[in-house]
């Protein structure tokens, strides 16, 4: 969803209004070839993306039919490709270097951190008591997030179905249940600074995290 919005397409019901945003008209200037030559779904499939999320996206993309101009002037346009060649215009050398870096970043994340435990306290604003997690039990932010979600779910989400999971395909129900649950994960690092979770590679985070705090959105505004 986020990604679509950022690409300038009408978003889903869950509007990601940027400050000053508001209704966007769907004026179609469209003889452009780009919309056809990019397959958004391919772009969305990175490792970290929850499959459910991209299903949700697809449903909503299909709803908003005028997202992808089914273009008229076909004599002009090349056949649809998965990604536009040479866009964004970054030198291949630079692209290759960054691809290698990205790969080794995620490899490092998978390797895990080795001996010893790394127990840290986890507090959540509004929760009556704290918990403790061993960060070395997880290899990625996603795993940690899943575990914390389970730990604190009774405070954030309220009603769950029998499997303990949200029925997020039902959007209005989702809206009701999630309204107001704007929490932000933060942590205190070795320097004593409060940081937003997720900036640094996983291993670096485990090394430097002293405690976790799940803050209420409004309070975390001053961060970063």
């Amino acid at each position: 969803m986020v990604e679509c919005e950022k690409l300038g397409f009408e978003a889903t019901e869950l509007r990601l209004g940027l400050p000053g945003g508001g209704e966007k008209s769907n004026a179609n200037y469209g003889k452009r070839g780009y919309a056809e030559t990019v397959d958004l779904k391919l772009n969305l499939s990175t490792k970290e993306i929850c499959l459910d999320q991209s299903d949700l996206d697809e449903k909503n993309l299909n709803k908003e039919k005028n997202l992808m101009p089914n273009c008229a002037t076909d004599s002009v346009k090349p056949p649809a490709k998965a990604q536009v060649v040479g866009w964004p215009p970054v030198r291949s050398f630079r692209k290759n270097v960054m691809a290698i870096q990205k790969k080794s970043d995620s490899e490092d994340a998978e390797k895990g951190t080795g001996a010893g435990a790394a127990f840290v306290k986890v507090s959540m604003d509004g929760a009556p008591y704290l918990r403790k997690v061993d960060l070395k039990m997880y290899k990625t932010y996603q795993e940690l997030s899943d575990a914390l979600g389970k730990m604190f779910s009774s405070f954030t989400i309220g009603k769950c179905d029998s499997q303990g999971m949200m029925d997020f395909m039902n959007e209005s129900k989702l809206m009701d249940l999630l309204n107001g649950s704007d929490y932000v994960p933060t942590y205190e690092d070795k320097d004593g600074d409060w940081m937003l979770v997720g900036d640094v590679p996983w291993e670096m985070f485990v090394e430097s995290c002293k405690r976790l705090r799940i803050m209420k959105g409004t309070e975390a505004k001053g961060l970063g």
Partner: protein
Amino acid sequence: MLNYFPEEVLEHVFDFVTSHRDRNAVSLVCKSWYSVERFSREKVFIGNCYAVNPERVIARFPRVRSLTLKGKPHFADFNLVPPDWGGYVYPWIEAMAKHGINLEELRLKRMVVSDESLELLAKSFPNFKSLVLVSCEGFTTDGLAAIASNCRFLRELDLQENEVDDRKGQWLSCFPDSCTSLISLNFACLKGEVNAAALERLVARCPNLRSLRLNHAVPLDTLQKILTQAPQLNDLGTGSFVHDPDSETCGKLKNAMKKCKSIRSLSGFLDVNARCLPAVYPICTNLTSLNLSYAPGIYSNDLIKLICHCKKLERLWVCFFIKLIHYTYFFSGVPLSNQGLNWIMQILDTIGDKGLGAVASTCKELQELRVFPSDLYGVGNAGVTEEGLVAISAGCPKLNSILYFCQQMTNAALITVAKNCPNFIRFRLCTLNPTIPDAVTNLPLDEGFGAIVQSCKGLKRLSVSGLLTDQVFLYIGMYAEQLEMLSIAFAGDSDKGMLYVLNGCKKLKKLEIRDSPFGNVALLADVGKYETMRSLWMSSCEVTFGACKTLAEKMPRLNVEIINEGEEIEASPDDRHRVEKMYLYRTLVGPRRDAPDFVWTL
């Protein structure tokens, strides 16, 4: 009267005329000036290696000592030109060797350089001093070994962003002990290891070394030892910057850095542990140039902390990393509420833009900024927006050159930027979605770019992106009087757009267009124009074979090349067929003889 000056006097005066444009102008004054100038010219610049041939250059400038050559068209950088297209340097080196040219310096960009060429170069010119290769390919470390072994007076070996095959042959160890003349050594783009001891010894015996850029394989402790040996460095490219930040090595590094009081330019960080960064704070105060665009792990907060120390920065290249996805899915994959997600989006946006805000507050001397995209296929990252650009323009009044990849842009922002910074010489904006409209009004970005060209009267280079109609080209044609290079992608509505540019921009030298609806009418309206330009590239536009043939017939001093990829086109194509890729350029020497099968010169 001027004819009565003895030639020696003219020659002496011309010694002070150094820029090649001025030299070119001088040579046009009269025959005797032409003659004196050509015998005294030592530095020759050739913007398109196929515009002329080696023999003619040597015939006109027999005393040439420094040659600069550019090969492939610019869009080759983005994979739009197939391999084996051309741009070989070998014939040039061969010809100069044959004619006994006293070559001292060779600077190449986007050319194919074989090991054979490097070996011939190394053996043919005893006074060879300086080799600069930018975005070249075709050679291996064996070729570098030949240079190191044979060029006894080598001062400069500068390899920038080349694709080099690493043969693991210890090329650096080939510099003989007698080599003490190095001033500049840049091997940051190489992938393989070099012998650390050999590197340290080389640095120790070259007291004039001013610029050193290491590659990824050089570890932090070697860097520390090198800096201790070479505190006189002006320009440093760190290799890998990863170590235990609490270790003795990092402590030693910090001390070594403190002694390097001359470093003004810093780059590298090809692998970095952000907690080691404070080691460089001592040199930050005097830095004028900082390139962090290849640093993978420097996340925005650490970047901001670093930049706050760099008050004298004139040039900055960065990349902002933000992992939006982690926030979105924090609670067991359940999407956060509207409000929550919306709000988090704002934080993350401002981290990227916030970093730029830090730059705007700190770097008042900034002239050149490049902001690269952090995740190239990245719809997952917030990156930077128009806010960052506006902040920079407000805080950095000396800004004259920018390359800015961003998620979104607005006309209002561009108009503000134009007001704040009328001094732009280079303005390149790249929206990650090439046809994205104004993020607030949903209109095309015509007015924004229009404001830029109107305000920046000295603008020489412009790249436009985002949703754009013919109108933006009308503005460019009307106002961009000094424009020399224009890059267009996915823009415009009709031939009028291109015509506005061709008619209006009198100083245009290079025009490159892709995926835009410009066709034959625009192409053929003013064929004489192309002889005043270096080159024109058009790909995925509307021009046909017939029109290209017509153009080629009318203009014998242009090479009109069609690049055919794929097997679709065997025999003579229909004149009405669209041309996928066309590259035309003025030339004195007719069709090139090294064109591969898939390139047709009409």
